[in-house]
């Protein structure tokens, strides 16, 4: 299997002087479900956002799907971004727009400026958006405003929005951190399904080891901007867990 993501010596130093990433080297193979572990502030979010340049990395190389992300500008950067779906902890939907419009906004990288100015989406795109809503089981909520949906439903709309992009990769930044355990599992199940059926590579940061074991094919752990573990979920024993989360940490089981 070929590499879809290749990071070389990636650094990010914030304006205030925080050194969030200290030379990350990472290769991700196509079709992997990679779980990012690590404490809050360990650099998980920074890493995910550097990879599609929502945050500008300070130095290093990023290659996604054989495209050099670092040197990309303007139109080329947007072309790279439109193949990378992104899912956020706070769902980041437009709360007073309908679920359908939110899903359609995933297509913005493809449509002309004129079509987006007039909010007139192609009929074909609407059909695709509806089928994507159906995939996450929300077709009956298409006309509902996002703010009237529950947290789990909002996250599923966000997944449908990412699907709209025809993504090769999905970055999920703590997608279940604001959801209850049962809903969290269902959201992860949808992600797992995309990974298996559509062969979408997924990088997902998490805090729950149980979910990591259930859905992940590989686990990478960050600590203070460095990779401290890289292996299969099964390899994480108690000692490894304490290496990642510190000596005082106890694994919390959610079931």
């Amino acid at each position, binding site marked *: 299997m070929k590499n879809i993501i290749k990071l070389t010596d990636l650094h990010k130093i914030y304006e205030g002087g925080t050194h969030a990433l200290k030379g990350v080297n990472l290769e991700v193979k196509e079709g992997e479900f990679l779980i990012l572990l690590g404490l809050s502030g360990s650099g998980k979010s920074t890493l995910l956002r550097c990879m*599609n340049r*929502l945050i500008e990395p300070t130095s290093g190389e990023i290659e996604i799907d054989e495209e050099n992300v670092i040197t990309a500008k303007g139109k080329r950067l*947007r*072309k*790279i*971004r*439109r*193949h*990378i*779906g*992104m899912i*956020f902890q*706070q*769902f*980041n*939907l*437009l*709360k*007073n*727009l309908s679920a359908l419009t939110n899903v359609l*906004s*995933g*297509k*913005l*990288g*493809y449509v002309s*400026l004129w079509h*987006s*100015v007039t*909010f007139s989406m192609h009929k074909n795109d609407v059909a695709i958006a509806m089928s994507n809503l159906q995939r996450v089981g929300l077709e009956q909520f298409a006309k509902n405003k996002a703010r009237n949906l529950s947290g789990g439903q909002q996250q599923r709309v*966000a997944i449908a*929005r990412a699907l*709209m*992009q025809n993504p090769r990769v999905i970055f999920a930044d703590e997608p279940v951190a604001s959801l209850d355990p049962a809903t969290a599992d269902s959201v992860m199940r949808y992600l797992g399904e995309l990974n298996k059926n559509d062969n979408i590579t997924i990088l997902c940061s998490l805090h729950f080891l149980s979910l990591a074991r259930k859905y992940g094919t590989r686990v990478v752990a960050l600590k203070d901007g460095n990779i401290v573990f890289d292996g299969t979920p099964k390899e994480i024993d108690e000692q490894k867990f304490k290496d990642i989360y510190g000596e005082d940490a106890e694994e919390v089981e959610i079931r």
Partner: protein
Amino acid sequence: MKKKNRTLEFIQAIATDLLFWIYIFGCLYYLMHKWTGFTAKLTFIGIAALLATIIFQLIRGSIGVKLFLSSGKPKRSVLKSLWGYLILLSLVVTFVVGLNIVEVDFYKFFTKFQNAGGIASGIFDPSVTGYSLSAESINELEKDDLPPDVINTLKGIQNRKYSTRKVFLNDLQKRLGESTLQEYKSTILKSAEKNTKLLNIALSALAETIFLALLATVFAIPFAFVLSFFAARNLMPRTWLGNIVYLVIRTIATIFRSIEAIVWAIIFSVWVGIGPFAGMLALMVHSVAALTKLYSEQIENIDTGPVEAIKATGASTLQTWIYAVIPQIVSPFLAFTIYRWDINVRMATIVGFVGGGGIGLLLLQQQQLLRWHNVGLLIWLIAFVVWVMDMVSARVREKLIGI
């Protein structure tokens, strides 16, 4: 390096003290001059201030020392809190000078109320529809050479209100007799009718005011809308061009906003002539500046999450603004716009006073003619409209924000 800082601190301390004493002695001189007619050359104030500065620097008890020379300790502990007393002194002096400059006169306030009797009676007894003879119109009739006994009879029904022409004429017939009434009927009716026309004029002037406020708001929206995006810190890139655009728009908006609408009205009434158009332009300029500020602050307060999400889909900057920014700001923008219309209706009255047309102009005319009952009517009308606008806009805003 350290020595340089000491020098700077010393200069700052001296300058502060000098300004402080120039102010104190200036105020004292003003009061002495006002009360006793005492005059002196202004250089004496300077010299006195300089002396005071030197003395207070030497005993190290001044405000400048407290502010800038933290290391310098007063020679005696009594002087430690001297700076506090100096500030108290300056506050007292400022207050006394203020009372003098504003010509505060409580005696006048409590004893001269009868001067406002005309306007007070106008407010409590405004001229309304129907037929009535005001003191002014009876005076006019007197000038029209009506016989004194008729005038006296008319004075007996001064300000009495009749709902219809028929009731009015019936009462006149009883008081004057059929033949006298027929003789002077048309003259009296003319005067009486003149008075009743006011409500119609007032209502049309009121409509003028409301519509000029509305147009000023509507015309201000597109300008403010476009400008606000460039005046929003979170949308402007932090490049030199972005910073310049942001600063220029913000500065101009602030300057235009700090010039009152009434000043703009003076400018525009010279430019396009007295009338509602001048008033509209004045309110519009002020509204553009005010709305730009309100709008851009609203943009700065949006949830950045959706912006990030839309950007991540590969959308261009403009697409991101359209899909992630605008949906978040539509309802607060509408709320602010309605609020602005509400403010503009209130300001339109004032703007009318200096040539902006509408009910303000009418009010000014009636006030200058000393027709206090008409002024009373206009004041009630304005109050009513402002009250309704205020209530409606509050309701609508509540609904919009609460979506």
